[in-house]
């Protein structure tokens, strides 16, 4: 450092021209227990000059009161509290962590060091409480006699990293949860498909198609970060594989609506079951049959909610009749689907083709995101 013995500038030792250097120059230090700059011991001057040069947030706390002198990097860390912290006593400067700093002062002035890794504190840097994490290093600053005149603190904020780690942990938990639930869904598909089939070949094909239907629905939801899906996109994905080559046998029509992840998954599986049935016995088993999928959203007569109605109408297929047994598909679309969507579902086996109508509400089909705790 370049000294200027003849300049007569009592702050010449600062050797820096940043914001903090000029605030230190302009401050009335005689109001503090540190006293006017002319009375500062060499250790205070030297430490102040040194910390002003550092890119690491550093604050020094002088004397029993812990009078604060800090650098530009620390002023950025202090937020709204800067510049009032300059020259303040540390316990009053950060009243929300006064106990913490009291301990720091006692240990530091006794000549000992402290180190904290990812220390969590609640600070008021923006006028509101804020949870922050920091790596904190405290050490005594000795005077000429070797006795601690103050404490120097390096403050490395780690909030962003800690948050990222917590978020990652949450995502891994959520992934594990979703894997377990998916395994349970596969278990459900296998065990229920086996109950309703006559041959191994039939079972194998049906299981694999149902797993593929689930997988396609997952694809759509993954594209949307699992917080819902556009119903039209969901229906298209579910039914693409059933569209006969060379003609548009399946039409999908309805106003744009975003459905929640659970409803999306359930409607996709229901459409898969309906389409499977149509290709085996209904309109999609012939060269001319068609299926029209449509939905509407209309004001409710009874409450503030809106009525969501989805229909599946087959035409031009073979003469249909009610099946003798209630298989997986029937149970899914007539049993659990209306339970899930808190509505009603009906199948009408009309001679010209099967007709399925689902009635629910906008609230029920817009369920909340899957990402949450528990489950």
């Amino acid at each position, binding site marked *: 450092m370049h000294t200027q013995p003849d300049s007569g500038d009592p702050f010449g030792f600062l050797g820096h021209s940043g914001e903090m250097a000029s605030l230190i120059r302009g401050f009335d230090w005689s109001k503090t227990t540190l006293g006017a700059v002319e009375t500062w011991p060499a250790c205070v001057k030297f430490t102040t000059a040194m910390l002003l040069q550092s890119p690491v947030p550093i604050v020094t706390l002088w004397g029993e009161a812990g009078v604060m002198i800090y650098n530009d990097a620390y002023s950025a860390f202090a937020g709204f509290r800067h510049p009032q912290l300059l020259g303040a006593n540390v316990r009053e400067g950060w009243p929300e962590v006064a106990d913490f700093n009291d301990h720091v002062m006692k240990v530091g002035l006794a000549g000992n060091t402290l180190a904290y890794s990812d220390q969590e504190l609640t600070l008021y840097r923006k006028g509101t409480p804020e949870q922050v994490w920091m790596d904190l290093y405290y050490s005594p600053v000795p005077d000429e006699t070797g006795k601690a005149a103050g404490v120097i603190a390096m403050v490395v904020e780690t909030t962003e990293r800690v948050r990222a780690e917590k978020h990652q942990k949450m995502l891994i938990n959520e992934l594990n949860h979703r894997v377990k639930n998916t395994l*349970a869904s596969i278990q*459900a598909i296998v065990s229920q498909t086996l109950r309703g089939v006559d041959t191994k070949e039939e079972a194998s094909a049906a299981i694999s198609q149902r797993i593929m239907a689930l997988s396609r629905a997952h694809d759509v939801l993954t594209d949307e970060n699992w917080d819902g899906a556009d119903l039209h996109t969901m229906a298209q994905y579910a039914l693409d594989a059933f569209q006969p080559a060379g003609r548009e046998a399946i039409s999908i029509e309805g106003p744009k609506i975003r459905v929640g992840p659970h409803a999306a998954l*359930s409607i996709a599986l229901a459409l898969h079951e309906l389409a499977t049935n149509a290709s085996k016995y209904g309109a999609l088993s012939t060269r001319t049959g068609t299926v029209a999928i449509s939905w509407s959203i209309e004001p409710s007569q009874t409450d503030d909610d809106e009525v969501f109605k989805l229909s599946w109408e087959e035409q031009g297929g073979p003469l249909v009749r009610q099946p003798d047994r209630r298989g997986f598909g029937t149970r899914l679309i007539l049993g659990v689907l209306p339970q*899930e969507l808190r509505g009603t579902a009906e199948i009408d086996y009309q001679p010209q083709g099967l007709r399925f109508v689902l009635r629910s509400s906008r609230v029920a089909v817009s369920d909340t*995101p899957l990402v*949450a705790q*528990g*489950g």
Partner: protein
Amino acid sequence: MKILVVEDEMLVAMLIEDLVSDLGHQIVGPAMRLETALELAETIDLDFAILDINLAGKQSFPVAHRLTERGIPFMFASGYGAAGLMEPYLAAPIVQKPFDAKAVASMLAKVGME
């Protein structure tokens, strides 16, 4: 026994229905959302309940509170295992998803004998 099934995923709800009815019990539900589950837990005569923890983003603990008040035993079913539980249910019976049918059966048998 009359067993309330609370589970938000359709396929899994069907699986639990099968597991439970194969053991000769009667199903109430499945309730797939918190509101429906609470209503059933408050109004229906039940001997037991199987509770998924996460119901479309809401936790099922309020259902557990209500069942506890009515003195109806229950168990949780969860993809997290016991890690998904919170106070005061840390020691509550739990079955892990996917399901071990024998574990479900022995849990129900225990309740049936009490």
